[in-house]
Each structure stands twice: as structure tokens, then as C-alpha cells.
């Protein structure tokens, strides 16, 4: 075509793109460090399955159709990348072919066939996407001009390429190939156009042009395609379509093992962190670079808010806006953040020498307070940390750790947190439980049950971790008693800590009160390690999660199992036998910290299926997409004053499913759902029971 024009376009197009990307990368490098480059093999696997395989788009039953649509556009783009290189080459070399993908190889033919079909498919998908946005209008979608513009550009890319090839086809087959155009021709595989049905169709559409007209169309389409592509490339980093570039790395760099980045174990003894306000996230620069990349990658698809228990009950937390606002703030302060990071690198650790640098750094403080101005307090405190958002996010954005880090900043540095938490924190401080009931009453529930204490039976095989609710809450004490009955029936060698047990600190940690958490964790770990505890049965998913995933950070390593999992094993091993006599419609509410945090979905279901004569009915929102009861992330101890109540919303769903019994596996869920039923005046009709209670009642 025209090497000069192509060079000009490439220099301008790629030059601007490189500059934008350089700035974006510099900005990420100005943020806090985090290690995400270990275990490359596992990371590649995630990238192949989740990003390239579009797992969360195609795999989600609820939105499979639109998921497939997106996947096809994405896969189409991947296929077309190779074609683009050929076109750029065509700008310089007449009939440019890529090695292995030229006319001498079957691969070349297979590729042009695939490319041809995919262009047609992508075009249809784009039309469908337009229809969806303009007519169907799914509520989760943000209908912005950007979305239409990008869809339009994709459409133009497909049409221009098809018409370019179509015009080429017409010139070669109908006009005797006046420009001596190149086309694939191989004695074995035949002519190029035998392999490109969509191109022939496009050629037919424009068959009315004369030879000269056809040549013009071909040239025009070529350059439109190239210019659109370079414009598209430069447009990507400016908006939500940055995900086209960042999704793959973002998924590659996602957290491994634990579903999101573990809460950072803060060094609270270091005096400088209190003076320099470096605990938690109070300022933009305290985000780590992966959190920055998460913000770059948000596709604004709105899946997160659609499944968010706070958003659907009209609370101000809208994760789409949360991300978008943070991203805008990050961009608005990009230059300052980069300069700040440069200066911060020159800090020597010497107090006097650093004083001046610190003064200079202070100048770069953004005008707006991160929490308060950019993110409203009510927004930050609304989150129940249920992870429904993370579970559906197609690009694996980790929302919750960022929220907790910001809460840490508020609680530790600013002393700003919902007032109601005071009572619970005080209770923890004095008596090791959020209710503040005397610690010496912790084992009162077990009176007369002949439950051994670790102090008297330190060699017990299992420690039964009762938890605060199981110890102090009247309703949950019944669950503890039921569990004891089961363990005794199975002849399990277990003991409890009694008054030596304290709250694990889960809610304190997730409310940002790392100090209180560490206090609880230190004391608990000391006791647990003192008894050389190895195996723990936890009757609360929050305790389970903290014991299993948080305590190792502080030297507590235990094999922790949830009681539903343990009971399931007891039944499987024949250590207890149950009657399949649980009558009525039975359903199960997945606790977030059991399911989404610890991937335990089957064990409770197995147990319930063994009990129920009718089998288990699933709720519409179940399994990985279960709906939170509203009590996680410290919300159990905060008032719910905005919007409707999450527990009532969930209870209504259970009532609508005509359940007679709803089984749970978490004391918070038990309280919340039972309260929700009372609120709906359905507590007589629908019984909320812990799995342990149901099993204990049906022991054979």
C-alpha cells in the first residue's frame, strides 16, 4: 500500500499508545509493593482458564448467553490479532505473509477460514450487543457513550476488513485482477476464496462498483481498518476498555490459594507507623500496585453490584462506582503520586536527613481525603465482606481486601468507625467476646454435658472451638449442645478450651481493628500452641476462616474443619447413623465464609440429603452465588439503618421457595435469618436450624 503513510500512522499511533502505557505503568510502580510473581505455572493456568477461557462469563448459568457473546468477541479479537499483523505488513510488502501462515501451509488456509468465520461471528455479536444495550437494557449495565463507541469501532473493524477482502475478491474474480493483487493459491488447498464464505458474501454486497470504484473501496477499507485499529488501541487505556489490555495480566497476578489477598499483618509495635500514618489505606499511595491494576481493569460490567447484598438493599455501596471513583482519583493525582514515590525512594532512614524529604512529600497530599471525600464513610462500612462480587468478577478484581485496608486506616488512624462497634470492641477487650459477657461464663453452656476441658484432657485428639456465639448466645448454645451430642455419639475424643477460649478476632480484623484482632489472636495462639493443638473442629465459619487462614500469619498452624464437614465424614465413615426422616421441604443457606471463602459446598449438602426424606431444594441464590445474611465483616455488630434489611431480603427468598426448614452452618446466619423470619412473621412456618441440630435430632 503506502509504506510512508503506514509508517506515519504506526509512529503516531504506537507512539501515543506507548506514552500512555508508560504513564500508567509508572503510576502503578508508584504504589505500594506486593509480591505476585511466584508460582508462574499456577498463574498461567488461571490465565488460560479464567481469562482466555472466559470461565466466569461462559460458566455462569444465569448469564450464559451474554457470556458467550463476550467470549466470542474476545476470541474473535484474539484470532484477528494475527490478521492485523498481516495488514500492517501489507502496508510495506505487497502480498505480505506470515511464516507458517502463508499459502504454502494448510495452517495458513485454516487460519483464513477461522478468521473469516470469526469476523462474521463477531459482527453478529456486536449487533446483538447493540440490541442488548438499546432494547433489552439489563439493569446492571452502564449505558455509556463509551460502550457504544467501542462497539461501533469493533463493528467498523469487522466490516472494513470484510469489505477490504470482499473488494479484493471482486477485483480478482470479476475484474481480472487489474492491480495484480495477491491471493492464496495452492495446488493442494485451492484458491483463497474457497475458504472464505463470509468474504464472498461481503463481496456480493458491494458487487455493483466498477473496477476503479472497487479499487477505491478496497484502499479505503484498508486504511479505515488500520486507522480504526490504532485509534481503538489508543482509546483503550482511557476508559473501561482498558480491560482489553489489562485483564490477562490481572488474572495472571490474582491471589492464589486464598480467594483474595490476605489481610496484611500490620506491625503495630513499630512506633513510626503510628506517627507516619502508614497503617492501612488512608491515602491513595497506600494502595498496592495490584490494587491499582484492579482499578484499571474494572470493565464496569456491573455484575458485582448485581450480586452485592448491600446494593440490592439500597445501601450506598456500589462497587462499580467505588472502583470508578478510585480510578478517577488515581488518574487525577497520577503526577503527584509518581513524584511522591520518587522522593520516598530517597528516604534514608535517618530521621534528620529525612525530615526535609518528608516535608516535600507532604506537599503531594491529595486535596480530597480518600475516605470521607472520595469514598463516603457509609459506603465503606456497608460491605459485609461476603465476596459475592469477587466470585462473579470476570477479571478477578479483589474488592474486599481494599475495603478492609481502608477500614484499617479509618479505625487505626482516624478512630472513625460506626459507634456501635464500640460496645463489641470493649466486650472483646475486657471479656474476649463481643457481647462483653463475663469471660468466666464462657463454658456455662456445657454444664452437665460432661464435656472435657483441654486443661483436664490436654491430649484430646480434637479441640472443639465453640466460638463466642456458641458459648454465650442462648440460641446458638443449642447448636453447641447438639454438636456435643453428635461428637459423643461418634465417640470422638475431643475437649473445649472453656474460659481459655477468646473470640478469634474475625469481626475486629474485618472492621479494620487490627490491634484488637492481634490481641485476641496472640492470646488464642498462645493457649492453642500451649496445648499443642493440631486438629480443630469449628462450629462457626468465621472462626474457621480466621483459625485456618489468619492465624498462620502469627504462628498458629492448625488443621481446621467445619462441623458440617466433620459430621459429613462421620456419616461417611459410619461413625454415626442418621434417620432419613426429616419431613417437609428443606433448603440450605450457604454461609459466605464457608462457601466462597473456604469452598465448602458439598459437605453440608451431603449431610442434609442424608437426613431429608424429600431431598434438598436449592434456593435461587445458592452455592458460589449464595446471598449473604448481612452479618459478615463486622456488620453483625453494626446497625443497619440504610435501605431495606439484608436478612429480610434473604428470608423472603427462603419463604418464597416454600421451605419448611432452612438449614444453616453459621451462628450469624442463624441469628440473622431467624430474625428475618420473625420480621416477616414466618418464624412459625419456616424453621431456621443449624445442620448440627438437625443431625442431632435424627441420630439413629
Amino acid at each position, binding site marked *: 500500500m503506502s509504506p510512508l503513510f503506514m509508517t506515519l500512522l504506526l509512529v503516531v499511533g504506537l507512539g501515543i499508545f506507548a506514552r500512555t502505557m508508560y504513564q500508567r505503568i509508572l503510576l502503578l510502580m508508584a504504589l505500594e509493593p506486593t509480591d505476585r510473581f511466584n508460582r508462574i505455572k499456577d498463574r498461567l493456568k488461571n490465565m488460560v482458564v479464567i481469562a482466555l477461557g472466559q470461565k466466569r462469563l461462559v460458566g455462569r448459568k444465569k448469564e450464559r448467553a451474554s457470556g458467550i457473546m463476550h467470549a466470542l468477541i474476545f476470541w474473535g479479537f484474539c484470532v484477528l490479532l494475527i490478521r492485523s499483523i498481516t495488514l500492517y505488513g501489507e502496508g510495506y510488502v505487497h502480498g505480505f505473509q506470515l511464516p507458517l501462515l502463508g499459502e504454502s501451509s494448510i495452517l495458513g488456509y485454516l487460519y483464513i477460514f477461522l478468521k473469516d468465520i470469526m469476523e462474521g461471528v463477531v459482527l453478529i455479536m456486536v449487533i446483538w450487543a447493540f440490541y442488548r444495550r438499546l432494547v433489552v437494557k439489563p439493569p446492571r449495565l452502564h449505558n455509556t457513550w463509551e460502550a457504544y463507541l467501542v462497539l461501533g469501532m469493533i463493528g467498523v473493524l469487522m466490516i472494513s476488513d470484510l469489505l477490504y477482502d470482499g473488494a479484493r475478491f471482486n477485483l480478482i474474480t470479476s475484474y481480472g485482477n487489474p492491480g495484480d493483487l495477491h491471493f492464496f493459491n495452492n495446488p493442494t488447498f485451492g484458491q483463497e476464496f474457497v475458504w472464505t464464505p463470509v468474504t464472498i458474501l461481503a463481496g456480493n454486497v458491494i458487487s455493483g462498483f466498477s473496477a476503479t470504484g472497487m479499487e477505491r473501496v478496497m484502499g479505503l477499507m484498508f486504511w479505515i481498518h488500520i486507522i480504526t485499529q490504532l485509534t481503538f488501541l489508543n482509546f483503550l487505556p482511557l476508559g473501561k476498555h482498558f480491560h482489553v489490555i489489562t485483564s490477562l495480566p490481572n488474572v495472571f497476578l490474582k491471589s492464589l490459594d486464598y480467594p483474595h489477598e490476605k489481610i496484611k499483618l500490620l506491625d*503495630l509495635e513499630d*512506633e513510626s507507623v*503510628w506517627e507516619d*500514618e502508614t*497503617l492501612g489505606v488512608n491515602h491513595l499511595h497506600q494502595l498496592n500496585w495490584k490494587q491499582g491494576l484492579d482499578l484499571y481493569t474494572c470493565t464496569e460490567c456491573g455484575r458485582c453490584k448485581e450480586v452485592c447484598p448491600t446494593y440490592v438493599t439500597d445501601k450506598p455501596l456500589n462497587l462499580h462506582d467505588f472502583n470508578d471513583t478510585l480510578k478517577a482519583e488515581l488518574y487525577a493525582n497520577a503526577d503527584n503520586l509518581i513524584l511522591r514515590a520518587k522522593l520516598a525512594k530517597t528516604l534514608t532512614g535517618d530521621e534528620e536527613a529525612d525530615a526535609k524529604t518528608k516535608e516535600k512529600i507532604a506537599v503531594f497530599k491529595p486535596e480530597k481525603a480518600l475516605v470521607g471525600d472520595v469514598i463516603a464513610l457509609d459506603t465503606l462500612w456497608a460491605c459485609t465482606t461476603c465476596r459475592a462480587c469477587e466470585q462473579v468478577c470476570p477479571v478477578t478484581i479483589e474488592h474486599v481486601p481494599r475495603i478492609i485496608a481502608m477500614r484499617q486506616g479509618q*479505625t*487505626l*488512624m*482516624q*478512630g472513625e468507625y460506626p*459507634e456501635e*462497634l*464500640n460496645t463489641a*470492641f*470493649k466486650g472483646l477487650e*475486657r*471479656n474476649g467476646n463481643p457481647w*462483653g*459477657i*463475663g*469471660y*468466666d*461464663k464462657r463454658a456455662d453452656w456445657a454444664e452437665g454435658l460432661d464435656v472435657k476441658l483441654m486443661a483436664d484432657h490436654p491430649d484430646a485428639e480434637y479441640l472443639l472451638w465453640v466460638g463466642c456465639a456458641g458459648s454465650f448466645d442462648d440460641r446458638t448454645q443449642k447448636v453447641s449442645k447438639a454438636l456435643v451430642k453428635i461428637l459423643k455419639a461418634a465417640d470422638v475424643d475431643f475437649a473445649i478450651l472453656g*474460659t481459655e477460649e477468646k473470640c478469634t478476632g474475625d469481626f475486629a480484623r474485618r472492621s479494620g*481493628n*487490627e*490491634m484488637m484482632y492481634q490481641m485476641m489472636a496472640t492470646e488464642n495462639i498462645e493457649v492453642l500452641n500451649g496445648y499443642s493443638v493440631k486438629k480443630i473442629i469449628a462450629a462457626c465459619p468465621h472462626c474457621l476462616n480466621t483459625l485456618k487462614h489468619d492465624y498462620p500469619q502469627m504462628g498458629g498452624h492448625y488443621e481446621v474443619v467445619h462441623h458440617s464437614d466433620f459430621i459429613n465424614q462421620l456419616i461417611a465413615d459410619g461413625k454415626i447413623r442418621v434417620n432419613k426422616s426429616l419431613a417437609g421441604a428443606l433448603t440450605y443457606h450457604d454461609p459466605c465464609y464457608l462457601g466462597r471463602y473456604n469452598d465448602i459446598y458439598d459437605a453440608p449438602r451431603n449431610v442434609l440429603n442424608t437426613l431429608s426424606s424429600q431431598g434438598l431444594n436449592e434456593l435461587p441464590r445458592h452455592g458460589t452465588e449464595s446471598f449473604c445474611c448481612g452479618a459478615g465483616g463486622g456488620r453483625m455488630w453494626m446497625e443497619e439503618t440504610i435501605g431495606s434489611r439484608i436478612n429480610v431480603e434473604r428470608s423472603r427468598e427462603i419463604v418464597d421457595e416454600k421451605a419448611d426448614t432452612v438449614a444453616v452452618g453459621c451462628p450469624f446466619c442463624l441469628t440473622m435469618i431467624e430474625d428475618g423470619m420473625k420480621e416477616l412473621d414466618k418464624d412459625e412456618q419456616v424453621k431456621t436450624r443449624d445442620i448440627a441440630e438437625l443431625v442431632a435430632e435424627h441420630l439413629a
Partner: protein
Amino acid sequence: MKILTTVKKVVDVELNIHVENGAILEKGLQYVINAWDENAVEAAVQLKESHKADTTLVSMGSGDNTDIIRKCYAMGIDNAIHIDDPNLAKADSPTFARVLQKVFEAGEYDLVITGKQAQDTDAGQAGIMLAEFLDIPCVSNVIEIKVTDESHIQVSRLGDEGTEIVDLTLPAVVTVSDGINEPRLPAMRGIMMAKKKKINVMDLAGLGTSFEDVGGTDPKSEIVEFMAMEKRKGGQKFEGDPAEITAKVVDLLVNEAKVL
């Protein structure tokens, strides 16, 4: 404005308290700030924030009170004095009031804020006696303090018939009820920073007095013995036909309980 506020370290009454041979068993007990004193500290800190008051805290007793004083520092108190004297272990309210009088006179305060009583003895005497000894006005059971001007405050007290509004000329003593505020849980940063602050610890001699001077050797009251409270017996529950139950209950009230 200079404010003096007092805190007492008391047994955590949330716990089961066991008594043996007339004395409380120490095992398993834990000590906390008297809850009403926490309200007093919060009230003082709020006045500090709204009217730039200078706040001093005083605690008394035998033994270390560092933990509770640090907490008050973390809440925002400026200075702290701890009168640590073995003689004060079993002192009565008038003695404590006399010690407070000495502290007050040494510091020339405008306002004393104390909790309305202590959770352990529930006496509610020290603050009122202090005012008497100093011959300055006192209002008890206060639920609101408003600063009128440099030398006047207006307080609301919860009386038997309703809220009473009282204008006070400073210096004065107010004892506060829990309705006055919700004591803050100190910011973690405050807690860490409070570790560095100095506590002015002295015995009675350091305060320029003696146990005899403050009336300790001639106590007006004395704790003779502790007794465990009798456990409440469980009630009886009746189920069935209302008419039958009513007859049964009336019968029990008349013949067994003999209250009718």
C-alpha cells in the same frame, strides 16, 4: 478552663464474683475503669475539644493503675496523677474525698467531673463530699454540661420528677450519669501514642499530706464482710387451658406463697 476528673479501678462486675470467708476471691477477677468514671473522662475530653479545656485525671488506690490511666490518655486526657499509697487499699469515701481535696487545692481547678458512683461499692459519696469539703457547689447525676462563660456552666441533672437545669458558678463539682455520653473507644493511634506519656505517680506524702491528715485513721465507714448473693430460684411455668391454669396459680398464691 482547668478540669479535674477522677477514675477508680473496679472489679469487672460482668464476671461471677466468688466470696469465701467474708472476702472476695481474687482468682479469675479482672479490673476495669469504673464505667461512670469513663463517662466523666469522656465529658472532660469533650469539653477539651469544644472549649480548649486543660484536663487532668486523678486516680487513687494501692497498686498500679497504669493500664487504666493509659486508656484515659488515649481518650484524650492531658495530664494524669496517680496517688499510690498502700494505706488507701481499704479507705472509705470521706478519706478519698479528702485526698481529692488535696489534689484539687494543689492544682487550682475550675471544674471537677466524677462518675456518679463506683460500680464496686455503689456509694456515690466521694464527689459530693469533695464539694462539701471545698465548700463549692455540686450537682449529681448530671446528663449534660454546657459552658455558659469562663466562670459559669449550665448542667442538666436527671431528677426524680424529670430533668433539672442548674446554673453553676465555677469552681464546682459535677457527678455524671451514663446518660451524658457514650465514652469513645480510644483511637488505636491514641493508644500507641499514650504509651509515651508520663504519669505523675506519688504517695500521700508526695501530695504533702498523710493518711492521718485525710482522715484515714478515723474512718467513718468500714467494710466488714462480703456475702454472696442468694441465687434466684427458677420460676414455675404453666401450660394448658387458661381457666385451669388461673385457678392453679391463684391457689398457689393463696396457699403456698401466701401473698393473697
